[in-house]
């Protein structure tokens, strides 16, 4: 099962390498990892999606907590949380298909951010399922290039701690 962990860490060089080193050394599988500064510039937030059974997730959490530079680990999997990925995709599009693609993207509330003569670039955000659905819907037109982020996650308001 996939788990989403929000990990607050000290914002200084080497921390990413400590965390990723821990995962590779102990053989845990990272599905995705997103890291950026938080509202406090001395603290970074890593959102890590990791797959494994309950025992593995327990070990991952405990081992992360042992790292001196890790401030806090929260498992957001079973919490009411907002999960988002960002997708950029270049899809083949000409006069015959452009309209159809725009209509499709409207359904997903995705945006067209660039149009060329033979292609267009689409931007979308959403949870993993939605992003997968968008990709699937675009595949018949011909995906030329695709980039997406891992999952970012945050607790909903009612769950504020």
């Amino acid at each position, binding site marked *: 099962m996939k788990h989403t962990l929000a990990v607050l860490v000290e914002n200084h060089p080497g921390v990413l390498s400590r965390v990723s080193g821990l995962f590779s*050394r102990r053989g845990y599988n990272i599905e995705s990892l997103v890291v950026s500064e938080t509202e406090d510039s001395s603290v970074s937030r890593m959102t890590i999606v990791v797959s494994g059974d309950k025992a593995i997730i327990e070990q991952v959490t*405990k081992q992360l*907590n042992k790292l*001196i*530079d890790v401030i806090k680990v929260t498992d957001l999997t079973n919490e009411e949380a907002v999960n988002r990925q960002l997708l950029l995709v270049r899809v083949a599009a000409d006069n015959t298909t452009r309209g159809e693609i725009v209509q499709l993207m409207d359904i997903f509330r995705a945006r067209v951010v660039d149009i060329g003569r033979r292609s267009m670039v689409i931007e979308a955000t959403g949870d993993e399922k939605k992003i997968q659905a968008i990709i699937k819907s675009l595949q018949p037109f011909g995906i030329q290039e695709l980039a997406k982020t891992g999952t970012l996650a945050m607790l909903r308001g009612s769950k504020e701690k």
Partner: protein
Amino acid sequence: MLGSELLLKCLEKQGVEIVFGIPGGVVIPLYDVLKKSKIKHILTRHEQGAVHAADGYARSSGKVGVCFSTSGPGATNLMTGLATAYMDSSPVVAITGQVVKSFLGKDSFQEVDTTGISMQITKHNFLVKDANDLPDIVAEAFFIATEGRPGPVLIDIPKDVFTQVVDKVREPKIRSHVIEKLRKPNIDEIVFHKALEVLKNARKPIILAGGGVNRHPGNQELLNQFSIKNEIPVAVTLMGKGVVPAHNPFYLGMVGMHGTTSANWAIQNCDCLLAIGVRFDDRVTSKVEAFAPKAKIIHVDIDAAEINKNVTSFISILGDSYDFLKLLSQKYQSTKSNKEWINQIKLNSGEFDDSFSQIGLNPQEVLETVNELLDEDTIAVTDVGQHQMWAALYVHPYKPRCFITSGGLGTMGFGLPAAIGAQMANPAKKVILITGDGSLQMNLQELALLRKWNLPIKIILINNGVLGMVRQWQELFYQENYSEIDLAASPDWEVLAQAYGINGTTLSTPGEDLITLRNILDSKFPWLVNVKVDKGAKVFPMVPAGSSLDEIWGRWGNEAHVSSLG
């Protein structure tokens, strides 16, 4: 004040009296100001010697052991020692020089990514970019090394940080979340009482004590009295040796691959296993699925990550072993006698035959004699291999922190420098190094320190002319295909001892030689005692790797050959 001077001040503030190390290119500025400090520097002959010595110093005293090295090869030479300290949770602080900041990342002369390389084998490490940060970093390094589960910490310092001028020295400050993270957890009372009930209801209880219990000197009395008062047998791991004195009638000895038959039988047949400060290493559990199959396991550890890592516990208690044992002694009321259980252990342990039948001197017998000659405070240090396991089975120091061995990493070459560190930390105590001809040659260069510092260490060299443990495995499991184990053309040990300015002698005939050994162990001078033993001598009992602890090999009763018990 220079960064280098500030560093020494910070170390003095932490109570550092001795450091082990070797100078080199980028640490010359540090060594330049060393004489201004009260800290005594012990020049080892190899950086690996320095870090093992710091480790031996730490293990035998409970204080932090400190070592210095230069950048590049100096730093890489420390790595085996850091990994050794990390596996056995020993508080070591290593200070390495680094190339000047502007040269970092340029593949400069003697540059390696020291913090990168040591990341997985230290509890934490630092790269110092500004000398003004030194007070914070040194304070935090010592805090991290000792608090919670101890471990090694490395501080990497570029040359220009040593030469940087510091105008105003800051008061050291440790980050609050670091203090919080390593704070000793309070034992959960509800969980504790559940554990108490399980232990009370157990008909066949046993305690397994590990390195975590060895840390606190007060634990021995608590555990010993608890065990005697309530008739609960105690087994130990290799790292737990000394947590209970061997004369405790309920002491079963070591568990695991070369554990005693009684300890292993008791583990496999107990209904409650109270495991304190152990991490269930594979050399302890052997086949983990078959480990203590009938037991409710109560696991007490200060490191949350050890709980349910290798063995799933029935009840887990997060906390310090001393707090736990104190609470246990206060709250536990024995309701029944365990005599029947203890008799069962005795009856079912098999008649292990340790009458030795090797050619010439028997290593077991020699170590039995060494054991008889231990005084209350003697520290026994070992290297790694057959002699280490014989020492674990036959040599029983009286107190905690008196059996010093590389358990987790199994580092050959650890013994001599660790013995030097232990003797430096305990000048009044007798230090005996039990080593082998393979191990001793892995850090032989440190022999020079015995003469230089008048360290009366007694080296008992169990010399069988081969890499004995490998030979034992090749004989038992690889159809006697003896591949690359012959240590022919090793030095003449007496001549070598003489060359290093210490006493040397060779023992090879049973009987009278053991009297010589007595005289030597009483001497005030360093000795290298070359004990010639049969290369065919093997360590038994033995549980083959991958088997359950029920399958113990050895000679039983009057059998002529090795067989499996049960």
